[in-house]
């Protein structure tokens, strides 16, 4: 099966995802004058990037609807960070274009970057400044007035649990605390678009929860979020839309539920008997194969309904006592693995 076969067309239009426009100073290109905005917050068209003879990103297009939390998933080296770097203006693409809330990143980088808050994967804050100084310096780049930036910095430090360490040099901070300062810098100006590249990688549980809560909070405040992550559960819990990239090419885009349903065929039934049984028992209609998992058997099937009925009949016929039986739901992880596995 070719990976292109998995490409899903969800039918989700940007305007179908709610996203209050609380940034009246930014005029969306698609404002029809009716009060309804038909615009993607981030539009990346046909991005391509070669490093020597290696193609890191090949004709990637993304449309992140305004108000969405959009997950960008892929295995290591798939091209996620390269794509994010081109979207944020850190890396110049060989081909293609990026628009952020209607502003072309290449033609007007200053205006485009003003609309973004970015946490780069390979970026951190200044170790020789205090937590507060880092936030205030960042706020100056966005032209915030002194009173506004001091008030906002105090709010964010409180929200991220760093008020007591605000005057400490960042060099003395743990990785999780540094990442929280990085996030504080990214959201200090309440950006309409928040872009986070692997924001939770390597963090402890507390810091990870704070990051996730902050992402949700910012989205609730109206920010559109684009994030890359390795954590499938995180993407499943946070994202309204997901794109999966493999070897520099987008292989699927859709809502997590749509992606999961694509791999509905990969379902299984887990069953445990009181008596020991062998693999030969499971030759019945609807059962593709069986694997022993500890004290249970995992029965793979294209049709869980038929498989469960067959298993009940087999148990009855063989006078076996069923201890437990459960059908699996398709998981996003299964979809991710299937989409990104080597052909």
């Amino acid at each position: 099966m070719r990976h292109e076969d998995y490409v899903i067309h969800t039918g989700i239009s940007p305007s179908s995802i709610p996203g209050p426009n609380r940034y009246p100073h930014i005029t969306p290109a698609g404002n029809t004058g009716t009060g309804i905005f038909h615009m993607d917050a981030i539009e990346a068209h046909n991005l391509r990037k070669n490093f020597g003879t290696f193609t890191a990103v090949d004709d990637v297009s993304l449309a992140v609807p305004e108000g969405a939390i959009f997950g960008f998933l892929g295995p290591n080296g798939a091209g996620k960070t390269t794509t994010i770097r081109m979207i944020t203006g850190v890396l110049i693409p060989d081909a293609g274009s990026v628009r952020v809330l209607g502003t072309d990143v290449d033609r007007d980088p200053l205006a485009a970057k003003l609309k973004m808050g970015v946490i780069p994967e390979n970026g951190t804050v200044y170790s020789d400044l205090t937590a507060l100084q880092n936030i205030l310096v960042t706020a100056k780049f966005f032209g915030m007035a002194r009173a506004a930036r001091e008030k906002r910095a105090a709010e964010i430090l409180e929200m991220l649990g760093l008020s007591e360490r605000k005057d400490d040099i960042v060099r003395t901070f743990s990785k999780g605390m540094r990442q929280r300062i990085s996030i504080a810098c990214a959201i200090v100006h309440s950006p309409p678009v928040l872009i986070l590249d692997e924001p939770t990688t390597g963090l402890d549980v507390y810091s990870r929860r704070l990051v996730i809560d902050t992402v949700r909070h910012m989205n609730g405040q109206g920010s559109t979020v684009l994030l890359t992550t390795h954590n499938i559960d995180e993407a499943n819990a946070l994202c309204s839309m997901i794109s999966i990239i493999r070897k520099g090419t987008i292989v699927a885009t859709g809502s997590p539920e749509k992606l999961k349903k694509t791999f509905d065929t990969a379902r299984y039934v887990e069953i445990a008997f009181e008596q020991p049984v062998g693999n030969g028992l499971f030759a019945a209609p609807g059962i593709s194969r069986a694997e022993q998992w500890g004290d249970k058997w995992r029965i793979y099937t294209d049709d869980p309904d038929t498989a469960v009925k067959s298993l009940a009949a087999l148990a009855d016929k063989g006078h076996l006592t069923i201890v437990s039986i459960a059908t699996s739901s398709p998981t996003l992880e299964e979809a991710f693995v299937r989409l990104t596995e080597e052909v």
Partner: protein
Amino acid sequence: MDWRILGRSIAVITEKNMRIYYFKGPVVVFGLLFPFIMFLTFFIGRNLDIVLFFPGFLGMMLFFTSSSVGPLITPWEKREKTYERLISLPVILESIIIGDLLAGAIFGVAITAVVFLIAALLLHLPLAHAGILAIGFILGAITFAALGTLLASPTTDNPSNIMMLSSLVRLPLIFVSGIFIPLGQLGGWVFVLTSLSPLTYLVDLFHAALNGDAVYPPWLDALVLVLAILVFIWGAKVIQKRNLVKGI
């Protein structure tokens, strides 16, 4: 292009650089001590006329202080991984280059002015033209801070590589810039070689300002320095843009 945003980004980068890299105890002490050591090295025991050679000493000092820290900023930021975050902020390459340049120039002018004032009081230096002296200070500081920014541009996240490159470029410039032998006493190929160094024109400008014994007209010195600034900034931009394309 929104010039207001560009100006703001330059100002914030300048302030950030001065706070993080320049106005720290060890850097300021080094900036003040270095010319004193250079003074001892070149003047003590050589029976030189201090007033005659002071323009050369002043030029050398402005040259060193303006170009000393600048070459290290970008490699240091790449190593510390703050560079990637910086360029994702509302800045463009010009903001970073000019911000780095201004921080170096301000540091060079501040340190050199302190030393000049002390020396002027102690040595009763002549002052032929205060305006030319001010222009020399400003143009010289910007020129060599721009040289520092150019030296910071090659692809590396290892500051020691840039230190080596910086020494390779800056030290020879001192010896071919008419600091130790007045330009008027040079001739032949040595004079031609000397005319290739921008430091020559700064020293000549200081000669015009202090002793009134310049070889070139001050406008020519100033013009060469302005051209050098443009070439250094253009070179830094070309190299740093190439780095952005290559993703390094």
